């Protein structure tokens, strides 16, 4: 019985007790208590490597909301396992590093490790989940834990701003992804990813294919900081360096890659996917590398470098997806190396980038600055750190004997193969890929050199540093050293990695291809004088030349004006949006009740008129036969009274006219055979008029005149429209008496209720409940009036407990 599905939960459960540990055992750094978790998880996952390599993935499902098909389903195959190992392995190293990086006296470690564990669990959840709703949940949880971690030092404004930016962009992507996933769920009628893959042909044929693809990709691109959504990653560098090493280079940003890889069996093979994924990846690779060169903050340089490297991986995934177009046949062999390259670089990038971030952390910790203009000549001061930096950067630059060289070569293979494809219009555009790849690699080489040599070589300027220390504690050196040794290890023994981890993962991305044994060559350092090798040599040569003359051409960067950058666009967009929204809201929410009422009445008129016209529901059944003279007179007097209320300039006159109207209504009731009504109306109207007089005539300081009512065209139009609609509907309703009313029942009121006055019987018996509530209303109004008069909190001394 395997407990793999519980692995996701363990970090969450442990996170509950971390604050308690921090509170009660502050003398030992809390990190020591947290460290065992990822270590144990890593070892447990490593056990599964052999199973998965033999193509027996781990599948388990725990019901959560089975009525809706939302279950906590786990599916661990090669692809998921790679990610799982990276998350737990690098997690362990990062925690060890953080023990020495974060001081246990000054930092709120309870919070830090809770957020970190939340993230770890969430990330494992993303890669291990088979149910898209659960995947979405963990996806958003990674965004949220990243938000909390970026703003860890929440007193700083820049931290808060960076966190908000990351949150907005990634959650926006998350929502888009949700929409895409729900579309897929609608098409394939399941929430399980495996099922969706099996029913992939339903998706390709569906009209919503492109939309769901784009939405899904939006999710992936935002999370993996692809162009143009990359702008949150540099700001995310506000987080403590261990977090930058963990989330924003090795794990969270790779979640988008996971998504693309996981869904390639469904979307791969289509031209749109091919161009979207590889295109965006390529642009990002170029842009990231290009921007990294000009950075002066080491962390920002690494951030842009990460953006570029992620672009590279995604580009490769896009290029490799063309294999799906062919199916598991010989022609597809061109494309498979790209997928292999992507996954290989995924692992490699985690090793060298993690190492480099930790090196930057060491530099920052020991010298107090990350600005390369102030650093220099640290080689002698920190030789070990220097070695680690060299290993990391040279690997990133693609030089032997480091694993980066292998993946760079494989990358070039991928783009060269792709340029030889003859589908998807690659005949025309194919050459673009190797060319851009080559140029981007040059920039990569340059900034790697900048990183190493500007920091460690060159002039030592101690006066510009905050503090001067030598090598850091062993706990800060060990993790990057482990990673650096992996860098070298993977160079010398790539086939170990390939056989056990990479090929099973390729099988997940391109199902059915690996079994077809399409003869992909093993990953070796020396393949002969291939075009790839020539490209690499070219990169090194040109790169060295450019690096040596750096100060001559780096001026070009200054020519790009600030407002042209996307970052600026985001910042100003946010501000401008808020201001525009404010203007809009203030525009219609004027605070004047007459405006609000105008909107309301106008809405009624417009919609009802529209409905009446659309449905042709006006009907008119003239039966004005029994109109007698005194009725006409009554009507006439009523109109006059109403007009007097409207037009009078004297308060008293208006009030009296209103009273007259009320009495006229009573007269109408008499005519219409409603004696009780007439009586009630008379009484109520009298009391109301008295109230009016009390409130409005006998107040001091009120002038007797209230001024003319004034004419406002809009008001008049709406009022006329409204009256017209009321009349029209009334006429139509009268002519459409479709059913006999239920009143015949009440005519037996004497037998049923013992009453001869039917209306009374209805009020007190048949519908007595209404009357009870009506009396309650009267009662509430009465008490309310009393309260209004008596309780005046403004004028009394307000007690402090008020509000």
């Amino acid at each position, binding site marked *: 019985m395997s407990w793999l599905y519980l692995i996701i939960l363990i970090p969450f459960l442990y996170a509950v007790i971390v604050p308690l540990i921090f509170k009660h055992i502050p003398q030992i750094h809390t990190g020591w208590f947290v460290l065992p978790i990822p270590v144990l998880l890593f070892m447990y996952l490593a056990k599964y490597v052999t199973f998965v390599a033999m193509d027996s993935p781990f599948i388990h499902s725990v019901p959560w909301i089975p*009525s809706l098909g939302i279950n906590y389903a786990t599916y661990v195959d090669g692809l998921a396992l790679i990610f799982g190992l990276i998350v737990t392995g690098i997690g362990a190293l990062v925690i060890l590093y953080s023990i020495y990086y974060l001081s246990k006296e000054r930092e709120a470690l309870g919070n830090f490790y809770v957020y970190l564990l939340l993230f770890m669990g969430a990330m494992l959840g993303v890669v291990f989940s088979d149910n898209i709703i659960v995947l979405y949940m963990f996806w958003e949880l990674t965004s949220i834990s990243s938000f909390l971690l970026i703003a860890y030092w929440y007193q700083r404004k820049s931290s808060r701003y960076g966190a908000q930016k990351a949150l907005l962009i990634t*959650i926006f992507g998350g929502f888009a992804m949700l929409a895409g996933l729900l579309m897929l769920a*609608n098409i394939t009628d399941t929430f399980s990813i495996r099922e969706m893959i099996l029913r992939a042909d339903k998706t390709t044929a569906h009209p919503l294919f492109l939309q769901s693809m784009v939405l899904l990709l939006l999710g992936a691109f935002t999370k993996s900081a692809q162009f143009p959504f990359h702008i949150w990653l540099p700001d995310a560098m506000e987080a403590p360096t261990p977090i930058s090493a963990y989330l924003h280079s090795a794990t969270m940003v790779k979640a988008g890659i996971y998504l693309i890889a996981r869904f390639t069996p469904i979307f791969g093979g289509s031209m749109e996917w091919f161009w979207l994924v590889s295109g965006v990846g390529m642009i990002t690779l170029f842009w990231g590398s290009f921007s990294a060169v000009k950075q002066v903050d080491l962390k920002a340089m690494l951030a842009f470098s990460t953006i570029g490297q992620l672009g590279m991986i995604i580009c490769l995934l896009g290029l490799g997806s063309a294999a799906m177009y062919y199916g598991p046949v010989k022609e597809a062999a061109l494309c498979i190396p790209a997928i292999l390259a992507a996954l290989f670089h995924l692992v490699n990038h985690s090793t060298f980038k993690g190492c480099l971030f930790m090196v930057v952390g060491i530099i920052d910790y020991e010298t107090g600055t990350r600005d390369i203009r102030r650093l220099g000549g640290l080689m002698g001061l920190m030789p070990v750190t220097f070695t680690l930096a060299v290993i990391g950067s040279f690997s990133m630059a693609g030089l032997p004997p480091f694993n980066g060289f292998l993946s760079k070569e494989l990358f070039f293979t991928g783009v060269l193969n792709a340029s030889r494809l003859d589908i998807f219009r690659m005949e025309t555009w194919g050459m673009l890929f190797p060319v851009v790849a080559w140029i981007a690699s040059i920039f990569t080489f340059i900034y790697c050199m900048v990183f190493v040599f500007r920091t460690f070589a060159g002039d030592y300027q101690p006066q510009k540093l905050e503090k001067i220390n030598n090598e850091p504690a062993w706990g800060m050196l060990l993790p990057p050293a482990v990673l650096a040794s992996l860098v070298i290890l993977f160079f010398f023994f790539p086939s170990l990695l390939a056989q056990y981890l990479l090929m099973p993962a390729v099988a997940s991305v391109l199902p059915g291809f690996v079994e077809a044994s399409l003869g992909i060559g093993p990953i070796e350092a020396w393949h002969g004088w291939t075009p790839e090798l020539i490209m690499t040599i070219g990169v090194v040569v040109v790169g060295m030349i450019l690096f040596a003359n750096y100060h001559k051409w780096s001026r070009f960067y200054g020519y790009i004006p600030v407002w042209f950058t996307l970052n600026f666009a985001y910042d100003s967009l946010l501000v401008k949006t808020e201001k525009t929204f404010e203007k809009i809201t203030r525009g219609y929410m004027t605070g004047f009740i007459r405006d609000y009422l105008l909107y309301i009445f106008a809405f009624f008129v417009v919609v*009802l008129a529209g409905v009446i016209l659309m449905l042709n529901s006006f009907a008119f059944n003239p039966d004005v036969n029994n109109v007698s003279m005194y009725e006409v007179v009554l009507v006439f007097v009523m109109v006059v009274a109403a007009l007097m209320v409207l037009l009078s300039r004297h308060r008293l006159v208006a009030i009296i006219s209103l009273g007259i109207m009320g009495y006229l209504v009573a007269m109408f009731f008499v005519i219409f055979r409603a004696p009780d009504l007439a009586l009630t109306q008379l009484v109520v109207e009298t009391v109301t008029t008295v109230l009016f007089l009390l409130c409005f005539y006998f107040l001091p300081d009120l002038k007797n005149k209230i001024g003319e009512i004034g004419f406002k065209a809009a008001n008049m139009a709406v009022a006329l429209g409204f009256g017209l609609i009321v009349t029209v509907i009334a006429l139509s309703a009268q002519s459409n008496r479709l059913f006999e009313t239920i009143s015949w029942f009440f005519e037996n009121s004497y037998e049923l209720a013992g009453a001869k006055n039917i209306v009374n019987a209805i009020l007190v018996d048949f519908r007595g409940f*209404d009357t009870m509530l009506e009396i309650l209303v009267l009662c509430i109004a009465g008490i309310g009036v009393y309260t209004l008069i008596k309780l005046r909190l403004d004028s009394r001394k307000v007690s402090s407990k008020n509000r």
Partner: protein
Amino acid sequence: MIMNNLVAFPLLIPLLAGLIMAIYRKSIPFQRWFSLFSFSLICIISFYLIQQVSIEGIQILELGGWQAPFGIVLVVDMLSALLLMTTGFIGLTCVLFAFGSIGEEREQFYFYPFFQFLITGVNGSFLTGDLFNLFVCFEVMLISSYVLISLGGNKIQLRESIKYVVINTISSTLFLVGIAYLYAVAGTLNMAHLSVRVAESGQPGILTTVAVLLLIVFSLKSALFLFFWLPGAYSAPPTAIAAIFGALLTKVGIYAIFRTSTLIFYHQLEITHTLLGVMAALTMLFGGIGAVAHWDIRNILAYNVIIGVGFIVSGVAIFTPASLIGATYYFIHDMVMKALLFLLGGTVIRIVGSNKLKEMGGLIRNHTLLGWMFFIAALSLAGVPPLSGFIGKILIIQEGLASGAARAGFYWLAAIGLLSSLMVLYSLMKIFINGFWGETLLAQDMEKGDTKGLLLPCVLLTAAGIIWGVGAEIFYPFVEQAGESMVNPNLYIEAVLREVV
């Protein structure tokens, strides 16, 4: 289908409680205990009703023994039962909050009785099966709200109260107009009977016109698109009252929309439900714009209420069984979370002494629990799983995206729904980032008010929210049953009209 006296209790208990407390208004402890007692009793009875409905089906009570449609009948289907339960719970928590916050003056001047009367109106609206009785119950609720919003009589309250009362008076009058028209055409007031007759007639143009009129009236009451009165009205009264308003008042209007558009007027969906869809979309958009624009807590929360209304109604507009279930899930989540949000916001205002975000900061240092509850509430409202909002949101969005829905797909509605979630998140995170994070501006002893007794109701509501999300499976059979009676009006009709008239 069974005459059940228990049905009337959720209405009678607060009524009697209010009257008794009105007599003994001088004794504040008595009023507090009695309020708690009343609400607990309502919760227990609602819970029992939910059980009864789930086992036996729809429960009715013919008042006075007069059979429907001649007399007034109270009807409890699962939707009503769930709403009664939620109302009782929210009432309980808000009254707990009021103990610590409303102030002695208001407590002595009938605050608790009026609150009970408000709940009477709300519960009555959920219970009634007669359209005119719905009007009267609305009026009970509204007049109580008029008094509550102006209770205390300070200047801001008076000013906003006038606007609130005038707009609501007009909407009530228009409700009567709609009832009058409907009576002319259909000749009855009982909802089940109306359903039968409207179906029989095929809902010709005149009935659709009246349906639209009633829909607009309910929209005015529930702040669907015609929400202009809401931000002002919710900013004026004290927190406990604003919370009740935010959680309950608009929801009764939404319930009326639910009921009329699923039970009675469901025959011409291209007009009625498309109209609802358009209004829902515009509500979410304008609500979102308002929420993003403001920098003071009260307004942000008020506009969030508006967004919530739009989202719930969008589920009704889409009108598939799954979307109605989603709308019900979201409905209850929204009630609980809005109450929580207002209570939390009110606590913050009380501590800082100001409403404006630019004047506060760093509260999380001294008020950790408050801060994290706010964070959870914000995520919940943005629909992040596994908190309370996500099931409703996912169901509604999924149904909106389904291209095989009853009419042309509501893609645009789903897209606007997601956009509104983003705006909800942005506006609420703005409060969190500016209010709770940042440099701490106020030392503990400089704070303007304390939080004694105010956190317990918030914790209760937060817990309820989390359970509603994580434990959604437990509640699913009930929500499904609620959806069932909305999709299949015959269940309701058969229960009420034991012989078809």
